[in-house]
């Protein structure tokens, strides 16, 4: 097969490309330039798409012995991922830009271009496993290394995308991958893993959002209100600095009467009110999801698990897929809703986050959380 290996400049994608080449595929490496103003050097685990990353990817391609190019997708990335991230925060939701990037960039813009150019598949260094299921559909499963498993951020891929994807690292642990990189002479073997949101270079999401949103910030301040008493406990300088479940950075002078920490329970973007209360008030037992994406066939009811954040825990759940009667000519899949009944409560769940649905180790699909139901005492 002709395989396009997306190479970030990190150790995982380098080893993935090398394994694809070893498997006998005709591999071409590409580095995606996603930032409009790339910085020269990365600092620690933060940021990406620096010139140094691009050079690291190029050197890895040299060592593997494959052609290498840089593709500029900065405009698409900005429109589909960065703008979406800002819009979601402006609306008071908490999006996951990594899922959006996989859905719109790596396995859409890049994959489409690759297929157009005559490639058969795109290979990445994500930790997830692909298998052919009994119905001949491609199934995506969690990686062998559960600590590194990235099936959550891939939960937006549909059958067509999975059929043209390769994840050569799914059967390995990170330790094995690092050792293999060193054995192969890849100089990125010791490079730190990347964390945080790649386009927020200093990791200060709130500061970044305030700067980028400018006049579009939903509010520039508001009250911090105790849910139980309705008492105004303090002021904040804009809700973009907060997410549901957050404990740090509230800077409330008066302690709670019982001395227990208080958490963000709710954010009202228009009035700017941030409601706080004790942790147990964060517990939710039902989620309503929209914009579902299915890896294969669409279930109507499923007893499985859901994962609600990257590297988050699994919750046992009963998932019901609703198909309201078709009215008008809108695409039916967009109108589908997903109700998730959680058997174990989840804490700190914000609208905008993705719920990824699993049957055992297999990813069934995902939905964007639109609303949550609190556990009633």
């Amino acid at each position: 097969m002709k395989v396009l290996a997306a190479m970030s400049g990190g150790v995982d994608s380098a080893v993935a490309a090398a394994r694809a080449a070893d498997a006998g595929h005709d591999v071409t490496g590409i580095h995606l330039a996603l930032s409009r103003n790339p910085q020269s050097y990365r600092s620690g685990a933060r940021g990406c798409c620096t010139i140094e990353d691009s050079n690291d990817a190029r050197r890895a391609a040299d060592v593997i012995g494959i052609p290498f190019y840089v593709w500029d997708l900065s405009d698409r990335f900005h429109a589909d991922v960065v703008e979406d991230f800002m819009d979601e925060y402006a609306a008071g939701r908490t999006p996951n830009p990594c899922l959006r990037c996989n859905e719109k960039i790596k396995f859409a813009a890049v994959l489409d271009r690759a297929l157009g150019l005559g490639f058969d598949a795109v290979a990445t260094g994500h930790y997830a496993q692909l298998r052919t299921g009994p119905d001949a559909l491609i199934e995506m499963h969690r990686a062998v290394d559960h600590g590194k498993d990235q099936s959550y951020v891939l939960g937006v891929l549909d059958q067509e995308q999975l059929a043209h994807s390769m994840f050569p690292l799914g059967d390995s642990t990170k330790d094995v991958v690092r050792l293999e990189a060193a054995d192969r002479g890849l100089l990125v073997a010791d490079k730190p893993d990347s964390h945080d949101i790649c386009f927020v270079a200093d990791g200060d999401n709130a500061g970044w959002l305030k700067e980028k949103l400018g006049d579009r910030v939903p509010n520039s301040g508001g009250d911090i209100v105790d849910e139980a008493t309705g008492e105004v406990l303090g002021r904040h300088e804009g809700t973009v600095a907060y997410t549901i479940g957050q404990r740090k950075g509230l800077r409330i002078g008066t302690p709670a009467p019982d001395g227990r920490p208080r958490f963000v329970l709710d954010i009202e973007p228009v009035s700017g009110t941030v409601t706080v209360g004790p942790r147990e008030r964060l517990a939710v037992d039902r989620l309503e999801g929209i914009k579902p994406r299915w890896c294969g066939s669409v279930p109507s009811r499923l007893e499985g698990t859901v994962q609600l954040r990257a590297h988050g825990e699994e919750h046992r759940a009963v998932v019901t897929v609703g198909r309201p009667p078709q009215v008008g000519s809108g695409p039916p899949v967009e109108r589908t809703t997903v109700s998730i009944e959680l058997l174990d409560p989840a804490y700190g769940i914000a609208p905008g986050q993705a719920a990824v649905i699993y049957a055992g180790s297999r990813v069934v699909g995902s939905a964007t959380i639109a609303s949550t139901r609190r556990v009633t005492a």
Partner: protein
Amino acid sequence: MNSTVYLDHAATTPMVPAAVEAMTAHLLDVGNPSSLHASGRQARRVVEESRETIAQAMNCRPGEVVFTSGGTEADNLAVKGIYWARRDVDPRRRRILATAIEHHAVLDPLHWLGEREGAEIELLPVDSDGRVDLDALRASLASDPASVALASVMWANNEVGTLEPIEEIVAIAAQHGVPVHTDAVQAVGAVPVDFAGSGVDALTLTGHKVGGPYGVGALLVRREVDVTALVHGGGQERDIRSGTIDTPAIAGLAAAVELSVKHQAEHATRVALLRDDLIAGVRHVVPDAILNGDPTLRLPGNAHFSFPGCEGDSLLMLLDARGIECSTGSACSAGVPQASHVLLAMGRAEEEARSSLRFSLGHTSTEADVRAVVEAIAPCVERARAAKA
């Protein structure tokens, strides 16, 4: 079988055997040309003979040849050095006139001078073929001639190949006593370039574009023109450029410059014929391909196209996979393709600028190379269009 079709001579062209010979002949010689003993004198002799060879080929005086590490350093030395020297004589001289399509080795020093040294940079517009607007030059000079430190206009554009009207530029600047620098790295050996005859005050040339080695070039600069040093040290080159003189590289450069200038006319005729075949062939199989740059007043080896509906870098990759090597002709930072500032200055939309590809022919180009492009281009364009849809 050697399957590579190399059509990127404007990026770098293979060394000619005479230059390899001249260079390697001195690689084992010891002797710093600045040393006073016999070995030093011998090395110095090689350098000075090389200087004389270049002076003769370029029609300048040997003392007007300042060796540098290549075109970029020579451009920096000319632009910064002349600006500083002229401004120091008269602090009113802060304006620098250049075209919007200069190479980054000129544009970036200009912007730096603008940001850090109080220079006022005026980028003159070009027409849709990439030729500088002489009326704009006249008007800009006449508006306040005493404030102009220098003008810098390339002899030939590296991307689209258009030749600039250097003689007219020099004549206009001379009316106001303004010195002219020209980056001629693409022009030497491709079109007639006569330093004294052209009347320019400073001219950049480089080894690896004329069949010489990398890492060596020269700024030809008239003796009457003061240039403030950029690199300080031993002052080896006319006290405006320091650094131990690279004898073997300079010997290779001289051999390449001498040969390329000597064979310029026949080389241009031969390469232009191949180039015209390539243009005709590409247009035949891809009828909507657009030839960029002046159709006739252009470098003999340059064929620069826009392929509507394609990404230039998709095309480059598809051709590369077939062993055909060309260029998107665009500036790269971290290998990130950016829409060419040259095409944008020529009035093209960003989309069209991104759809372009440069084939540049040179002394090793053959009819087979042209055939290979004509055979491959249509399917590659088709694929690149599919990938963009």
